[in-house]
C-alpha cells in the first residue's frame, strides 16, 4: 500500500488546563479509521498527559486517561515521549501510564508502545513523518 502516510500527532499541552489534549485524542481515534501509519509524540507539557494516577472526580470533568490505553486497539503502536521534557519536569518513565499493543508479526505478543527518545531523535521523527498534526 503505497498510499499509506506517516502521521505524527504532536502533543505539547498539559491535559486539563486546555481542551487540546482531549481534542488530539479524539482526532487520533477518528483518524485511526483511515488505516494510516500513526505515531504520537509527547513533548513539553504534553508529557503530563501520560502521568498516571488521575482522579478527576473533584474537578467534575471526565477522566479520559483510560482512553489512552485503548489506543493499542486502534493500531497505534508508536508513542514517542521526549526524555528531556520528562527530566525538566522531575518525571521518569515510571511515572507514566502503560500503553501496549499486540504485535501481529510476533504471535500477537503484548508490547509497550511507549518509547522514550531524546530531543534530537524527536526532531528526526518529526522530519521523517509525512503529515504532522499539532496540538
Amino acid at each position, binding site marked *: 500500500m503505497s498510499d499509506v502516510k506517516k502521521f505524527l500527532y504532536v502533543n505539547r499541552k498539559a491535559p486539563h488546563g486546555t481542551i487540546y489534549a482531549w481534542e488530539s485524542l*479524539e482526532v487520533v*481515534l*477518528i*483518524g*485511526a*479509521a483511515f488505516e494510516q501509519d500513526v505515531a504520537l509524540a509527547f513533548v513539553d507539557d504534553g508529557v503530563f498527559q501520560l502521568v498516571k494516577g488521575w482522579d478527576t472526580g473533584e474537578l467534575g470533568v*471526565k*477522566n*479520559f486517561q*483510560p*482512553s489512552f*490505553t*485503548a489506543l493499542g*486497539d*486502534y493500531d497505534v503502536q508508536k508513542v514517542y515521549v521526549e526524555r528531556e521534557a520528562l527530566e525538566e519536569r522531575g518525571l521518569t518513565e515510571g511515572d507514566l501510564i502503560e500503553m501496549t499493543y499486540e504485535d501481529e508479526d510476533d504471535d500477537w505478543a503484548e508490547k509497550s508502545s511507549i518509547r522514550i527518545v531524546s530531543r534530537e531523535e524527536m526532531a528526526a521523527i518529526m522530519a521523517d513523518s509525512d503529515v504532522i498534526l499539532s496540538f
Partner: protein
Amino acid sequence: MAYEVNGKTVEHDEEGYITNLSEWSKELAEVIAKAENIDMTEEHWEVVNFLREYYDEYQIAPAIRVLVKAMKKKFGPEKGNNKYLYELFPYGPAKQACKIAGLPKPTGCV
C-alpha cells in the same frame, strides 16, 4: 425528546442517544431497542454488555473495527465479524448497539 420507562422519562438527543449515561437500565435498553425495531435476544445482550464493559474500562465507545477485533478476541471469529454484528444491528453495530447500551455515539462515527 425522551424515552418512557416505568413511568419515568429519560432524555435523549435528536438521534436517540441518552444524554445522561447514568440513567441507563436494562428496561431502558429494551425501550430503545424497540424504537430501533430490534428484539433483544441473548446475542444482542452479549454485544450490548460487551460495549458497556469496554466503555467502563476505556471511557470511549469503540469504533466498529475495534469492536469487531475485540469481539473476536473474546468470543471467537464466529461472533467477531462484521456480518454477524450487522445481522444483529442492521443500522450499524457500533452506532445502534451503543445507543441501546446507553453510551455516546462512537467517536468518528457520522
